[in-house]
């Protein structure tokens, strides 16, 4: 174990020593008296009992009051030291932590993200935590701190590292298959090293790899082909994988589209033999640019020509003024779920029902008023001023909404 | 058993104990309700207005009346008026059916408006309203289920009364069924203002 000179560990240890000390004395006392009685009053020596006492009020009061006093001191000591664990020193450095199955992500005030918690020695650290899927728990035994991370809620712990070193962080709240592997470390650096670490690095590392590490992907997916709880990311380009989609299985060759879907909506298609446990990564978590970088890294392709950013196009061209992305109704139909739904159209005075596909979306962009979704007015301007690449980007984007 | 042991007070006491367990069962849902109400007071008022007070009020009347008729039925059998007792039992069951039919219309109206657990329209109304309707459906659903069980119980006892298995000397079975029935009147007494009448 690591040396424990830090304030939180000392607060907890004092209580532990106090309670365990009392407990040991009581246990030894109880055991010694019992053993003595059993030997002293054994039947071979005392064939009949020498007392028929039914009780003694004074004794009952004594051993009601005495334990009460003892446990109340324990309670008070435990509570007052607990308060110390909750009151964060004013100068604390605040770091956000996000827990997910089964990795940690720490975000620094300057936006930098890491999967390990780098901290300067001597500065109090406040870790503000939340979870994106199920309950986890941030447990750093060396600092004696632990707190659950709860979806939809923020919790915190604080600690100060007093000596440089590497300290374990465990997940202490059961969270599924990878629970025991949801381990990372607190890297306590002395002032000099921390200064150096916190400099913005000009990384030679490809952006995609950085993102994979930052997001904790490598906690489950190996990069070297070794098997883990999730498929390895080794040599993906063009590799064939057996997928299960709903009840159907099929074999596909991995391409960028597939990777895109597999990260944004991992629960839809599963690699055969694996459980649907990967959380979806939305745009707040990995921006479209970063995602592209990851895909490029995994596919081994360079970023020759940047693909048009469809989301940006939607904003720049005012599409979002009429079409919501969250399912609410503005003027036109919402984009939410547009790629998966069937629509009823009015075309040439007739009503037809179709499933939305790429073809339909192209038509709807370029000649919007020839087919109108039932219940809406024919008022959308045609987007025929966009380039083919841009149209294709939009179609591709919308299909995945 | 060779020796018939009869203990009517014991049987009633056992029934009361069972009723306690039912109250605690519902209290789980009421705890959820209370917590959510303290979290989203505004949303709860908004959501409550979407429920139809007339349906709820009518059902309150129906349940209170059915509670009266079953209580009268117990008095009737005690006084040896078997025929009256039977009539009152059947009226109670009739009222239970009215209650359920009423519930059916109320729910189908709401479901047709897209208000049901897991619906997208509900999800769009925000977490407070969603939680109100989720709780409403599960509490009222559980209550409805118990009404169904209670009515069946009374039907069985009524048949036994007709066959003279429940008599003025031996009517604990009817009394216990009545106790069960009153309990769901009690639950509704709380359910009605909490779900239909929040301002």
């Amino acid at each position: 174990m690591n040396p424990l000179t830090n304030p939180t560990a000392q607060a907890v240890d004092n209580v532990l020593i106090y309670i365990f000390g009392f407990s040991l004395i009581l246990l030894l006392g109880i055991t010694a008296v019992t053993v003595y009685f059993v030997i002293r009053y054994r039947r071979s020596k005392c064939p009949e009992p020498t007392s028929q006492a039914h009780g003694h009020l004074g004794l009952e009061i004594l051993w009601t009051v005495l334990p009460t006093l003892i446990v109340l001191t324990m309670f008070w000591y435990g509570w007052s030291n607990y308060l110390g664990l909750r009151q964060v020193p004013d100068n604390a450095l605040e770091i956000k932590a996000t827990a997910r199955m089964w990795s940690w992500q720490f975000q620094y005030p300057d936006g930098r993200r890491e999967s390990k918690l780098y901290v300067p020695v001597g500065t109090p650290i406040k870790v503000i935590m939340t979870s994106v899927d199920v309950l986890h728990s941030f447990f750093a035994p060396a600092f004696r701190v632990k707190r659950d991370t709860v979806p939809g809620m923020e919790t915190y712990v604080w600690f100060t590292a007093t000596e440089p070193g590497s300290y374990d962080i465990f997940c202490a709240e059961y969270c599924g298959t990878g629970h025991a592997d949801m381990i990372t470390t607190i890297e306590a650096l002395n002032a000099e090293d921390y200064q150096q670490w916190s400099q913005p690095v000009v990384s030679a590392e490809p952006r995609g790899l950085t993102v994979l590490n930052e997001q904790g992907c490598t906690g489950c997916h190996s990069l070297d082909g070794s098997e883990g709880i999730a498929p390895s990311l080794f040599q993906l380009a063009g590799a064939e994988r057996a997928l299960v989609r709903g009840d159907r299985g099929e074999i596909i060759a991995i391409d960028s589209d597939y990777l895109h879907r597999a990260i944004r909506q991992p629960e839809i298609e599963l690699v055969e033999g694996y459980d649907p446990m990967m959380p979806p990564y939305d745009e707040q978590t990995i921006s479209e640019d970063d995602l592209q970088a990851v895909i490029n890294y995994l596919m081994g392709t360079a970023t020759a020509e940047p693909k048009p950013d469809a989301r940006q196009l939607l904003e720049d061209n005012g599409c979002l003024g009429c079409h919501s992305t969250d399912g609410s109704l503005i003027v036109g139909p919402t984009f939410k779920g547009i790629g998966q739904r069937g629509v009823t159209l009015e075309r040439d005075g007739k009503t037809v029902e179709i499933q939305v596909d790429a073809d339909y979306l192209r038509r709807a962009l370029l000649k919007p008023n020839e087919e109108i979704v039932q219940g809406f007015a024919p008022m959308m301007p045609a987007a025929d001023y966009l380039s083919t690449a841009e149209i294709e980007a939009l179609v591709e984007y919308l299909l995945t909404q | 058993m060779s020796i018939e042991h009869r203990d009517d007070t014991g049987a009633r006491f056992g029934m009361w104990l069972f009723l306690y367990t039912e109250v605690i069962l519902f209290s789980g849902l009421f705890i959820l309700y209370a917590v959510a109400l303290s979290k989203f007071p505004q949303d709860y008022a908004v959501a409550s207005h979407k429920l139809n007070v007339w349906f709820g009020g009518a059902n309150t009347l129906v349940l209170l009346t059915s509670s009266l008729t079953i209580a009268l039925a117990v008095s009737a059998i005690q006084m040896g008026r078997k025929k009256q007792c039977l009539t009152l039992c059947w009226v109670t069951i009739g009222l239970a059916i009215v209650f359920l039919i009423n519930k059916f219309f109320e729910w189908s109206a709401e479901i047709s408006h897209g208000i049901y657990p897991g619906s997208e329209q509900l999800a769009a109304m925000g977490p407070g309203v969603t939680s109100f309707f989720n709780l409403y459906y599960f509490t009222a659903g559980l209550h409805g289920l118990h009404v169904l069980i209670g009515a069946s119980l009374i039907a069985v006892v009524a048949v036994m009364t007709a066959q003279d298995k429940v008599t003025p000397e031996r009517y604990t079975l009817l009394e216990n069924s009545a106790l069960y029935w009153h309990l769901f009147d009690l639950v509704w007494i709380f359910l009605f203002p909490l779900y239909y009448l929040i301002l």
Partner: protein
Amino acid sequence: MKQTTLTGFWQESPRSGVLGWLLSTDHKRIGIMYLGCIITMFLVAVCLGLAIRLELIAPGPTIMGPQTYNATFTVHGVIMIFLFIIPSIPAAFGNLLLPIQIGARDVSFPRLNLLSWYFYISGALLAVIAIFSGGGAPDTGWTFYVPFSTQTTTNVNLAAFAAFMLGFSSILTGINFVTTIHRLRAQGMHWGRLPLFVWTLYATAWIQVLATPMLGITLVLVMLERIFGAGLFDAARGGDPILFQHLFWIYSHPAVYIMILPGMGVISEIIPTFSRKPLFGYWAMALSSLAIAFAGSLVWAHHMYASGMSDMAILIFSFLTFIVAIPSAIKIFNWISTLYKGSIQLAPPMLHALAFIFNFAIGGLGGLALGAAAADVHLHDTTFVVGHFHYTMFGGTGFAFFAALHYWLPKFTGRMYNHKIAMIAWALLFAGFNVTYMSMQAVGIQGMPRRYYDYIPDFQPLNMVATVGSWILAVGLILMFANLWRGCRSGRPVGQNPWGAATLEWQVPSPPPLENFGAEDPVVTKGPYEYQGVVADEY
């Protein structure tokens, strides 16, 4: 043993053959059926427990994969809690003994009693089916915490439904016992003459009635959430995941008193008998049972100090947790005082009872560390908690169950087991138990979280010791059950009172006849622990 050699209620029944058992409303037959099922379930769960320990002998995979491991500890927990320890003493020994001890011919609602056994057996079957069907054995842990339990693809619904059924069975038993104790006491059996075992069953029965429904509704909500996506605990839909933990522990903390109180009752019977001395502080013992039952209902959230709950709640719940320790301490002091100036015979039941006091003291004292807010922050969700829990539940209730088997089986079979072997088995159990769980507590203090399939190398030495301890424990269990089984089949016949005890069950033949007492109802004239003039039968 041929069936014909067993007399009493084993033979007397309105129906013969298997139906005579399956349709019997005799409390003793129902008790025996419970006992058989419970011991079977116990052995199944012990095997799973041994598998868990074996997996943990070294870091990394040894005998199973992580998913299997998670399912194993879940099923171990569900079976041990819901199918073994909750019904162990109340349903099995309570049914066997409660009516006889208060001088009644049966419980208040014999048919309800049989029904509750059917609920138990259906729950057991569903639990077993849940392991082998659907999306695989449940992997949520026995606590079914949301949101994990609503998201996992394994067969949680069926397991939760099984637990729901078992809860119902427990409620019916509770209703039956409360009513029986109030209504069916024999003439002269006033409250001051109730054996302590009956007092603890009474306190337990109230918890069963008032707390179990909360588990029922909680599990129903988890099922609804999985089936309809109700979102009652989903933060995005206005729910609160921590609220689930409140509802769950509102039942499950009092439930540990359902598990331990009857064990304390058993110990309170055995210690006076083998000291030939009245139980010291009868009323303190009786009232402390009720106090534990009541105060035990006020402390559920001490399982949640790290959950993100408010600090105000931690303050109050921590305070109350320490208060609930006091009645347990009173009990221990009174048991020891009963030994003072007695005439102590170290028969097998007595050895188990003394082991109970030692183990339970460790478990209880460990509970103090967990009740203190600051200390719990470090110990929560580590193997220290698992060790603590097993000290109270296995070292406590488990040993009380073994004590009860050794104490009362001769009564209900009319035959005695081999004492020497029983003592060797006891020594193995006691040693193996302490080695296993003391190591687990120690490695927990070092910081090893619970439910870990894999661990860092620092934790290995103690884990290895714990695994070796579990093997000693297993040998002790095999020896003990084999000895008891042989004793029941072909042991020496015993008279009606082999231990020289003073409660009513020892004043009827072994095994007791149908309806327990002859034509005349018993009239009680003295307390349960007055041994003057009571002579033990030779065997």
